[in-house]
């Protein structure tokens, strides 16, 4: 099966900055894929190359098997991009904006589909309003609509919920999930790690233009930390010494294999007569994973001699 997106050894330098330093990445059809990384990690450069907005110095990229440079027409037809910047054309209404965008892709009489998009994005009542009069959140939704107007099988969203209020974020998530269920491949970059954790099946983490982690969200979460318990007590039962991740003056962080482990811990504490001052269960979240991978990546980058 041909992959939805394939990046092979992509590299791109802007002056002194190596924005991408040899990125290999494959996203399969139907995936909900997350692209994470701090500012300047190369996420937007990677997306720009996929979209044909930026040309790589070396390497190549394909959308559903179509090279983004040599077969750009087919590649761009297969791809819908929601750009990061909140841009719009002040000359036009919402409906005109969507019609024009459909026309650029050579689609005429797309009004039924446009009505559907407007309804899904809760913009029907604003269809004839000028773009200038919309709130930021509405403009963001129009951008999503513009990316969908040619029914692309692969959709890239570059930080779609940046600066968007909680309510809208939830409704956008719902809509993007639906698109994924309907068979669209989704690639999402985001700063909100909870967002990636909740939505993405697989995640690539970028740092300084390189992929530093690439795995399913579940594996990333379990590979690091997993379930932990924070215990404030006089001491730790002898049989649990090997599970101590951190000990700090009577505050211990213990690793659990699963929730059933908690019962064993409580039993051990009871048997040894240890009094508990405080006990809290903690689940690993992507933020912890992210921070650990990023600090590891930074250390290895600085270790390379200049």
């Amino acid at each position, binding site marked *: 099966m041909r992959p939805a997106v394939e990046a092979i050894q992509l590299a791109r330098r802007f002056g002194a900055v190596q924005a991408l330093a040899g990125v290999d990445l494959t996203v399969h059809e139907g995936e909900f894929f997350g692209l994470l990384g701090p500012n300047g990690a190369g996420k937007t450069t990677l997306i720009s190359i996929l979209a044909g907005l930026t040309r790589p110095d070396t390497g190549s990229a394909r959308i559903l098997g179509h090279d983004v440079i040599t077969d750009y*027409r*087919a590649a761009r037809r297969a791809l819908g*991009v929601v750009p990061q910047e909140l841009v719009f054309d002040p000359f036009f209404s919402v409906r005109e904006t969507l019609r024009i965008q459909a026309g650029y*892709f050579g*689609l005429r009489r797309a009004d039924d589909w446009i009505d559907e998009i407007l309804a899904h994005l809760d913009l029907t009542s604003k269809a004839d309003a000028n773009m200038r009069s919309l709130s930021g959140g509405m403009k963001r939704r129009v951008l999503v609509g513009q990316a969908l107007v040619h029914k692309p099988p692969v959709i890239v969203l570059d930080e779609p919920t940046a600066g968007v209020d909680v309510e809208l974020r939830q409704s956008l998530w719902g809509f993007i999930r639906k698109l994924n269920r309907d068979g669209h491949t989704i690639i999402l970059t985001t700063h909100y790690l909870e967002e990636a954790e909740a939505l993405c099946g697989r995640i690539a983490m970028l740092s300084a233009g390189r992929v530093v982690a690439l795995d399913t969200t579940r594996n990333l979460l379990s590979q690091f930390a997993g379930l932990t318990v924070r215990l404030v007590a006089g001491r730790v039962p002898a049989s649990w010494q090997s599970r101590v991740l951190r000990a700090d003056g009577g505050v211990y962080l213990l690793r659990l294999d699963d929730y059933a482990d908690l019962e064993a811990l409580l039993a051990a504490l009871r048997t040894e007569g240890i009094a508990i001052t405080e006990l809290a269960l903690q689940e690993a979240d992507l933020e912890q994973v992210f921070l650990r991978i990023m600090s590891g990546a930074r250390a290895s980058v600085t270790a390379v001699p200049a």
Partner: protein
Amino acid sequence: MTTFGAGWPTLLHKELLRFWKVAFQTILAPVLTALLYLLIFSHVLESHISVYEGRVAYGAFLVPGLVMMSVLQNSFANSSSSLIQSKITGNLIFVLLPPLSPVDLFIAYVLGAMIRGIAVGLGVLAVTLFFVPSLLYMPHPLWALGFALLGSAILGTLGLIAGIWADKFDQLAAFQNFFIVPLTFLSGVFYSIHSLPRFWQQLSHFNPFFYMIDGFRYGFFGLSDVAPLTSLGIVLTCALALALIALALLQRGWKLRT
């Protein structure tokens, strides 16, 4: 299966809507400006200037010059301002993401510019005919039309190049004020180059705008400073050369795709 047609007709349509929605300033304003030139210059200069050895009244002589000047300036203004606005507001991305080829972009922007230029030119002609009705009799209307089309194509292409090149509005204004405006004013809009001193006459022959206006005027009077076929050849060459440059820039994605 969704079928895809060509994208450029929509881009052209968008370019037309863009100026049509503000037609008051994109069409009516330049018509008024040209009318003021006609009224003031013809009134002041009518008795002082003789053109084509007195065979054509100065007021009549001036009209085709003003029409062509309007065509040229507005063609340039359309493509250049559309591009710079899209670049500065960032919405050019909507044109760069779809599968529009360099030729698609070229056709849409240049045709849009030509239509705006010709629309303003027709407006100026319609209003000035009121004052110089004798112009209605044109010996070679097709020559006039040909030069108007070529002239607007050249300036539309220059506008496209300038719009791609400029990063800021003031750079574009500089291009217009230090390049386009001097070349149009020194091209014989207001005078026949035969009334110039020899040196300036010679220099005018290096100005491609001179041939556009001289050829256009030939359509109205059957009279010109140089043979119309020569002008046609020079103008056609300029149009083709600029088109090739613009297409090469679009192909490379110069200043558009990083």
